[in-house]
């Protein structure tokens, strides 16, 4: 599914040539290669920074207008390469936003590259004043153990009246609302299969 060209029957190939006037001889930068950029451009025009980047279609992560965005990355993850986001801009082919973005969307790049992005699993021990880096295995094993122990200890199979209720209300789970529907369903299955009732998402607020 990652091959967007397949699903994309109407990718915009329009060029805003009007501005140059008719009959203008154009120079192909691609043909000149990167070394030619400076030569191809007027001295006073900065090189076009997106040359050679990979375009990926995505949706803005913020509000529910769900603007279509284009992510320009150095490297192509569909080819197994390491990819880094260089620029994000609105997708003009998207019916809702028509290429526009709000100040949040226009600055998505800084969300992706925020200094406060998390990179490693961390734990803060009881009473401690700092996070310590741990392995995923450690973190996941420990969380699985904590959840299971609590469930085993506090699971309610029958209520006071003897009715089967099979609920677990001593632990809770908050789902966010920027994850995908697929993540949501995965989350739903895990949480509800354990009998957890204290389960909400941002919509509640």
């Amino acid at each position, binding site marked *: *599914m*990652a091959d967007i060209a397949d699903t994309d029957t109407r990718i915009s190939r329009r060029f805003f040539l009007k501005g140059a006037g008719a009959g203008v001889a154009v120079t192909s930068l691609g043909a000149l290669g990167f070394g030619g950029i400076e030569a191809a451009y007027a001295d006073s025009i900065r090189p076009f920074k997106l040359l050679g980047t*990979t375009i*990926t*279609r995505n*949706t803005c*992560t*913020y509000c*529910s*207008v769900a*603007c279509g965005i284009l992510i320009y990355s150095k490297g192509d*993850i569909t080819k197994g390469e*390491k990819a880094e986001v260089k620029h994000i801009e609105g997708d003009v082919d998207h*019916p*809702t936003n028509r290429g526009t973005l*709000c*100040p*949040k969307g226009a600055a998505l790049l800084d969300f*992706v590259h925020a200094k406060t992005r*998390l*990179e490693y699993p961390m*734990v803060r021990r*009881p*009473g401690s*004043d700092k996070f310590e880096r741990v392995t*995923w295995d450690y973190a996941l*094993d420990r*969380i*699985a*153990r*904590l*959840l*299971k122990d609590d469930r085993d*200890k506090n699971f309610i*199979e029958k209520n006071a009246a003897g*009715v089967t*209720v099979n*609920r677990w209300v*001593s632990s809770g*789970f*908050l789902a966010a*609302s*920027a*994850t995908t*529907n697929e*993540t*949501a369903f995965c*989350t*739903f299955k*895990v949480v*509800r299969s*354990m*009998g*957890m*009732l*204290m*389960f*909400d998402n*941002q*919509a509640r607020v």
Partner: protein
Amino acid sequence: MTNSWTDIKNTDLAIIMGGNAAEAHPCGFKWVTEAKANRGARLIVVDPRYTRSAAVADYYAPIRQGTDIAFLLGLINWLMANNKVQWEYVKSFTNAPYLVQEGFGYQDGLFTGYDEVKRDYDRSTWNYELGPDGYVISDETLEHPRCVWSLLKQHVAQYTPELVSRITGTPKDKFLKVCEMVGECSAPDKTMTSMYALGWTQHSKGSQNIRTMAMIQLILGNIGVRGGGMNALRGHSNIQGLTDMGLMSNLLPGYLTLPFETEPTFEKYMSTRGYKPLRPDQTSYWQNYKSFFVSFQKSMWGAAATAENDWSYDWLPKLDVAYDIIRAFNLMFEGKVNGYVCQGFNPLLAFPNRAKCTAALSKLKFLVTIDPLQTETSRFWENHGPHNDVDTASIQTEVFQLPSTCFAEDDGSLTNSGRWLQWHWAASTPPGEAQRDTWILGQLFTRIRDLYRQEGGAFPDPIVNLNWSYEDPDYPTADELAKEINGSALEDLTDPADATKVTLAKGKQVPSFAALRDDGKTACGCWIYSGCFTEAGNQMARRDNADPDDTGIYSKWTWSWPVNRRILYNRASADVKGDPWDRTRKLLWWEGSKWTGFDVPDIAPTAKPGVVGPFIMNEEGTGRLFVRGMMRDGPFPVHYEPFEAPIANLIAPKIRGNPASRVFKYDWEQFGDVAEFPYVATSYRLTEHFHYWTKHAQINASLQPEFFVEIGEELAKEKNIPNGSWVRVWSKRGSVEAVALVTKRIRPMLCDGKVQHVIGMPLHWGFIGETKKGYGPNSLTPVVGDANSETPEFKAWLVNVEPITGPTPVA
């Protein structure tokens, strides 16, 4: 949204009330601008503050926060009194003619059946009068004193323009001007769209705020038509999807509901979910509930869910009470919760009464956060001076902070407010060891399941039998999950008329929820999403932006639920005979033998006009001006003041807040009153920021760097607060320090003869990120939710304010 963002371009009048679309949804708001520029549409903004939406409005009217219902009931009163009613629509497409049973009544702000101790109603009298055939009795003349229309007329009569103005603070002339502008849209070829958001939901009567406007839209004939509808702008990118998917304390996917312990058996559970039509020949789509439910159970537990074990009905937990977040944090505060997982959520800043939140989190044994970013919640134990003044050493909570990917590093679908499911693709390698949520959940689940397999434990059945047939159980992919959500045939499905004819072979994806079965032969994770990933491929990834006739429908762009329908109740866009109300804005019409048009009909394609009502999800087939016992706080809306209000409720002075709202004892004691806290505060977003996320993004931080409160010039003068100076704002629950932004955009209002000053408090600051450290409104807000949804009352509470020389220095 009943309609879509792009449909707003078809409107004649946009009314933004209970929201601030220009500021919170700029790219969606463009369709208002387009309607204005291309159709000559008008824009009305009703808000306590002159917002960025108001800046481009044709008409702005101020309103005191928390009084929207009085305003809107007054508007209904005016429409009825001035014959601004779309009569054919009201008579045919709403329940206006139906009789309500005897015994139903309303007096002094309360309906029949109120129990003051329980703060709840016995709602049995809130119902129609049914005939011996089981169908509702109707008076087409609308003259019967017990018909819904008569009762409504009587109910709204007291909301005169004078009273509305006394309650809301909206000057009478401005209120009347809004009435006139709205009234014009009662013409069948004029439509109004209502755009709202958390300005309506975050009240102790949030659901009724919305309902009141929905009633107006029914009276004006604006539901189901192009350029009309009730359009919830919604906040987060997939808040719609997570709700659709049932990630709520009381829900299952597709708005199926979790059983209560009063429904111990599947039979009992289904007995209240039959949804028998209340009108002859009416389609009542929820009659398919069992097919949806059984298919859901099959997707959860596969072969383990059988007819014999009632499709594993016992494996679903049974509710005793609602475990919404307000109760969850109250239980946590009482020390009754041990573990909590926050999958990308920041409750420390998002839930009311921050001090209580901190105390609650501190009582947890363990807290897990899964997020792309550091959050205040994951660092609630860390001392940040006045911005998070905690005793770190005394907090015994073990906290895990797990790094997840963000949008740029993940595949999958998001559901927007217009119900479009849009697929997106990963573009980037995640930073460090960050992992996708499905990997984290897969890993966690298989570990827990293995522990149950190895060592047993409390009721392992639903866990060890959970259908988890992913190629890599530790890492379900988005495609696998999407197919599971869509649903598939577990066995060959055959034509009901001809058992030899296979309509869908085993293992194939179902084309839509119409194929779902109640006999266990189909599985479907979320019935309303059925059709999103069929044998024809991933419909959510479609990218054909063709729009025949320029309707704004875009039916080939991705996919929308249900069954790719873009405007809900679209049958109502045509009159009783099936002709469009407005020929210039056709949507759906009857073509002799079937419905046709630009959108997928929201009715059986061959359902004859005049037989089947357009609202097929209601047993009545009509829109509900009177909702029977389905809302906890009344079948009609009533004006209730916020729990912290500057004046008494003018229609029922003894009632504080919404009488049906649940309030915990601790929280009730934390309410302040007007003598101590004379100003009304409200919280909101600013366009430069998205909640507590963009304070991590440098650009956004630079565009709106520091926490401030907005104060009108009059109050600033009275309190001697120069623009840009520092103030302290406090409520019964906490205190914050902020820069004062003194503005002309907030003006005092006259409510019941008293001058009311509004203090505005934006919500984007915390103690982590690129912005300067600040506070959120939740440091001050009360803990009380909407009677129906438990959404906290963030939009109206009481505070006091004083100038200070500067912020408390950080030690």
